[in-house]
């Protein structure tokens, strides 16, 4: 009998625990990084939030990078939208205009110690409409060139740092360097994540020619214009004549020590090898015919209006990006806060980088950089350009004709 009462008591306890569990709120945020250092940082911030919000849990759901927006949209279509999501700068126009996101301005303004005025208004432009913020650009990250000095010295070439000192850091000299390393059997220059699919990453090259895929208002295709034709001819030549960039279907990883240089964002510094490191450097993008330039990738976090816990999710977003946490995130994701874009603060957040690297790549980059091109209805436009560009990725391609064909194909899509 006694046993039975014990059992009953235990059962009651379990049941009440179960009920308490059911009252718990779990916020789900989809992200495209599965990097352990990134996740550890996010989980630490979430744990701090859970301290002040008992019963609330935050999980980070890593989706595959190259199909991220497709998967996210399919989750939304399937009634399985996350509470919060990272959003690429290129699909910002789609998400901000759709009405799928909850407005954030009020929550951010009301958050204790948030100081929304500290956020550079220019960084918010892409993420706002009608004076209302719909997503927060937690990362405003310039593209730079990671360099493997060991490989370059082995090829008997001056390092990019030396070229910069001489004022000779141009695309011609960069490709020359890359070709020399490639001739030694390693890969030359890799535009990371491009892989002949995600062509928008080539903006890190063609912006040096002053080129853009479409006009600022998004209505006219400028792929066939002279700057783009010159830039693409240069890229084609670098791949197929000079062999300075890996050809289609050839894979190489800079961070495994397989390549001389890679163009990517500073958040990828977390991929640098911790054992047997090579002598690496981070330098700004080389100057193109149109002079010095910088390119920024932005990543926003939005809260879905359809979420049952939209208010709480917005509160977490405000917590995650408040001045204290923004300083922590700055290790990988440069914050849009004016007060934090100083060499001191960024250097403290990011022990991997030197003060000079932070100055020349991060701070100058954010000050002068252009954001990668986005558009409404991007998925379809992106695929059309990708399919069209395939004709350019063969040795004897007619690049100008390819670009003209792409314009004919995407012009109706741009005009919509």
């Amino acid at each position, binding site marked *: 009998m006694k046993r039975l009462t014990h059992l009953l008591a235990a059962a009651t306890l379990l049941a009440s625990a179960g009920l308490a569990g059911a009252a718990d709120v779990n916020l789900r945020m989809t992200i495209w*990084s*599965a*990097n352990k250092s990134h996740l550890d940082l996010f989980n630490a911030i979430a744990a701090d939030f859970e301290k002040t919000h008992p019963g609330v849990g935050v999980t980070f*759901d*890593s*989706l*595959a*990078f*190259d199909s991220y927006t497709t*998967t996210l949209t*399919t*989750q939304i*279509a*399937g*009634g*399985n939208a996350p509470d919060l999501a990272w959003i690429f700068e290129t699909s910002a126009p789609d998400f901000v205009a759709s009405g799928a996101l909850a407005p954030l301005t009020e929550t951010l303004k009301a958050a204790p110690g948030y100081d929304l005025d500290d956020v550079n208004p220019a960084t918010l432009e892409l993420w706002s409409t009608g004076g209302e913020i719909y997503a927060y650009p937690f990362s405003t990250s310039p593209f730079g060139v990671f360099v493997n000095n060991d490989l370059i010295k082995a090829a008997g070439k001056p390092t990019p740092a030396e070229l910069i000192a001489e004022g000779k850091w141009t695309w011609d000299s960069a490709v020359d360097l890359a070709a020399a390393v490639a001739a030694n059997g390693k890969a030359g220059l890799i535009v*990371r*994540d491009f*892989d002949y699919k*995600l062509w928008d990453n080539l903006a890190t090259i063609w912006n040096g020619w002053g080129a853009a895929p479409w006009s600022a208002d998004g209505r006219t295709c400028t792929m066939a214009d002279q700057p783009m034709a010159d830039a693409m001819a240069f890229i084609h030549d670098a791949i197929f004549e000079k062999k300075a960039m890996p050809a289609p279907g050839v*894979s190489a*990883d800079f961070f495994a020590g397989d390549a001389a240089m890679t163009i990517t964002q500073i958040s*990828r510094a977390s*991929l640098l090898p911790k054992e047997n490191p090579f002598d690496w450097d981070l330098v700004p993008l080389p100057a193109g015919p149109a002079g010095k330039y910088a390119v920024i990738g932005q990543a926003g976090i939005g809260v879905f209006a359809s979420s049952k816990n939209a208010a709480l999710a917005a509160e977490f977003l405000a917590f995650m990006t408040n001045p204290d946490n923004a300083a922590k995130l700055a290790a990988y994701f440069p914050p849009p806060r004016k007060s934090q874009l100083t060499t001191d603060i960024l250097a403290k957040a990011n022990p991997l980088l030197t003060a000079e690297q932070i100055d020349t790549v991060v701070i100058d980059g954010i000050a002068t950089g252009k954001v990668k091109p986005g558009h409404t209805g991007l998925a379809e436009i992106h695929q059309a350009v990708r399919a069209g560009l395939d004709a350019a990725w063969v040795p004897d391609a007619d690049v100008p004709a390819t670009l003209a064909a792409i314009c004919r194909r995407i012009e109706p899509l741009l005009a919509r």
Partner: protein
Amino acid sequence: MKTELSPRLKLVLYGLLCVLAVPFVFPTWWMVTSSMKPVSDIFAFPPALIPTTYDFSSYADVFRLQPFARQYFNSAYIAAVVTAGTMLVASFSGYAFARIRFPGHNALFLVVLTGLLIPSEVTIVPLFRMFLKWGMINTHWPLILVPIFGAPSVFATFVMRQFFIALPGELEEAARVDGLSRLKIFWTIALPLARPALAAVAIFTFLHSWNLYLEPVVYLSNPSVFTLPQALTQYVDAYGGPMWNIQLAAATLTALPVLLVFIVAQKHFVEGLAHTGLKG
């Protein structure tokens, strides 16, 4: 054409068979051996037919990077449920269409046959919205219900019907005279005789479910509910580059068990498939 072949012709035929076998066997062999090699050896030429150095770390990574055991279980239980369910549904309806004269049986059989003409790809969008309304997106229900009851099961019904039509009627007649009910006759007499046809249905259905790719990609979006084919394509590093050796290890784990079952039971496979009634 069953004449004794001359020794020379035999030699030629063996040679031809061996050459022809290469594209059927080499990919599987390469997959299994490469999954045990260090990454740097995978693209070495000539490929080592047997790894010179073994590196099993990729097998550990398969389970570390994704809930692979869970995904394996998902695929296995879905395939098992779908196979059992299809065998049941198809043998009932195949038997009825073959042996029972019920009102409208011809018209209804035509209705069922439309399933052969409408590939599930045609109806994927409305099915997606229907399952969305029923709250079954990101669950396994669409991968179970549609194959058992929808278009994919029609082929199985067709195979069962062809078999039951060819079955001599005397056995059943005797049982009917003895007063056995239809259900009893079906369950205790007809179905046990239908083993070869059931084997064919089981093999086809299992492979169909095991290989299903478009549907999981459309319906499922969380790694913990993924099925194997879908999981295999997700072995990419944090930023989208494929992880070759890990992908190969996962592919090996996916392919090998079914292959082993097949090698052990290959006689039943081939005989069962020959009984699909497709002989004309």
